[in-house]
């Protein structure tokens, strides 16, 4: 009876959101593009809320006004620090990391948090090293203010780790936390009061894939094609099906390497991690590295003509069939 009660106690304080650890003060580094907050930052905000302390959001940019007012209304944000400077127009890691370090030193945050996106991955470790602290990458769970859960070995093992550093630098796996909602009143904003460092590198250009379909990492339905698609034109079959059910389209590494689709569509250990309600793998064998990017999907469907394909071992529903007849038929019947 007593033993039960003792184990119940920590759980209770968890539910309260660390009522005792009132010293948690987290800084959320906001990623944004084209005047919009990146979807993965909303997931990182939810993770930050689980720490139980205050959350300050840091927005850096050339003219980030629209983003600042959007962030101020996000649930759990108590203050928005604004760093407005032409140097922050592009997310160059050198100036962004030194901004983060300056903000930390000025305000004494206990946690620095960003999403484990290309942006977060680029900037956060640089800042961590300058602060002489470790980083905990790609967390999928929070056990306490210093203990986190993260996948290793392409998601084939789950590690629970405790940070012994005074400042915790964390990147968050977006699919492991729901997106934060909105709050009634807007949080106050404040000038970050830090100057931009001289940039060590220079932004030249970018080339973004334009698509009307939902974003891959936040879509609730994803259809992905692999080597079995045979060429880029055949991906048209997947686009038709995707448009019918409002899904995003992704790909395996084999399909990307073969040039069927753009790199930014790759799902897997080294590409995007997705966890939609429905994941349809078409002509994908299911290598370890691909499974790392999608095996937390709620329902997995596999369409493959090889009954031995490893993808069938994780698929909730497998259809052994030629994709070139099965996919058009499926599209018609949806």
């Amino acid at each position, binding site marked *: 009876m007593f033993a039960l009660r003792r184990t119940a106690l920590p759980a209770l304080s968890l539910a309260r959101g660390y009522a005792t650890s009132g010293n948690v003060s987290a800084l959320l580094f906001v990623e944004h593009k084209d005047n919009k907050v*990146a979807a993965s930052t909303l997931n990182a905000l939810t993770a930050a809320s689980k720490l139980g302390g205050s959350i300050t959001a840091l927005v850096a940019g050339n003219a980030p006004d629209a983003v600042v007012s959007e962030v101020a209304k996000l649930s759990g944000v108590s203050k928005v620090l604004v760093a407005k400077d032409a140097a922050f127009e592009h997310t160059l*890691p050198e100036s962004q*990391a030194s901004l983060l370090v300056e903000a930390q030193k000025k305000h004494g945050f206990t946690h620095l948090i960003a999403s484990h*996106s*290309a*942006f977060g*991955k*680029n*900037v956060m*470790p640089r800042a*961590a*090293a*300058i602060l002489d*602290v*470790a*980083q905990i*990458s*790609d967390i999928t769970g929070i056990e306490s203010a210093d203990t986190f859960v993260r996948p*290793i*070995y392409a998601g*084939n*093992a*789950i*590690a*629970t*780790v*405790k*940070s*012994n*550093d005074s400042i915790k630098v964390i990147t968050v796996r977006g699919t492991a936390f729901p997106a934060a909602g909105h709050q009634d009143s807007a949080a106050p904003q404040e000038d970050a009061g830090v100057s931009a460092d001289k940039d*060590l*590198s220079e*932004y*030249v250009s*970018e*080339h973004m*894939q334009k698509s009307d379909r939902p*974003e891959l*990492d936040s879509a609730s339905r994803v259809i992905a094609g692999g080597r079995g698609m045979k060429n880029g034109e055949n991906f048209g079959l997947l686009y038709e099906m995707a448009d019918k059910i409002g899904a995003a389209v992704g790909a395996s*590494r084999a399909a990307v*390497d073969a040039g069927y689709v753009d*790199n930014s569509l790759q799902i897997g*250990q*080294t590409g995007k991690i997705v966890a939609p309600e*429905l994941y349809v793998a078409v002509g994908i064998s299911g290598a*370890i590295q691909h499974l790392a990017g999608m*095996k937390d999907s709620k*329902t*997995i*469907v596999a369409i493959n003509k090889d*009954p031995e394909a490893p993808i*069938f071992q*994780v*698929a*909730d*529903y497998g*259809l052994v069939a030629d994709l070139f007849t*099965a996919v058009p038929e499926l599209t018609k*019947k*949806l």
Partner: protein
Amino acid sequence: MSSNLRILVACKRVVDYAVKIRVNAAGTAVETANVKHSMNPFDEIGTEQAIQIKEALAKSKGNAEVIVVSCGPTKSQETLRTALAMGADRAIHVETNDELQPLAVAKLLKAVVEKEKPDMVILGKQAIDDDSNQTGQMLAGLLNWPQATFASKVELSEKAMTVTREVDGGVETVKTPLPAILTTDLRLNVPRYASLPNIMKAKKKPLAKFTVADLAVDIKPRIEILKVSEPPKRQGGKLVESVDDLVDKLKNEAKVL
């Protein structure tokens, strides 16, 4: 292009990418004894890139020296020999049996950089064992050098590099002066295989050894691993007979349509 370039490439020995790993009985780590190891795939790409730069420079009467470095137990030397067989000129082994986390490796590499004074350090974007994706960025931060991460294309010019980076939604191009840090993405190149004669030749190439004490670096782990467990197993393997059957199951059983 600068006619003389020194490139340092960091390589990690990891459990081979094709191995299906197992968590140990105590739930403290992944079994690594008697498991096939090889060079981290992203580091192979890094080594290949350095050799390609060396080959390109040789055509314009320039020269590049490619130095490979690995931190870890004695067996890391196998990884270094592999890189030497691919075409690297010499190797540096920082030997330790202690656990090394990214910050510690970044500090060891910084000490090596200060000794060797390279114009460029190439690292893989992540190691496929700890999946951290940190070391290159940390090294850049410690050295206060510019960084170009997740590179899919690199062009060198006089004292600078122009790098196409893979970012969410597309690619971005940045230009950094040298010295700089580069981390490789999968699309940067296709690493070559080492030929048997080159494997033989690699055995005679110089391999310098350092201890952690030589480099005077504090490598104490900052992160404690409390537990390692298996991920939840999926109950997969259910086959459906037809497209109609599939649509029916998705609508009425899984209720995702």
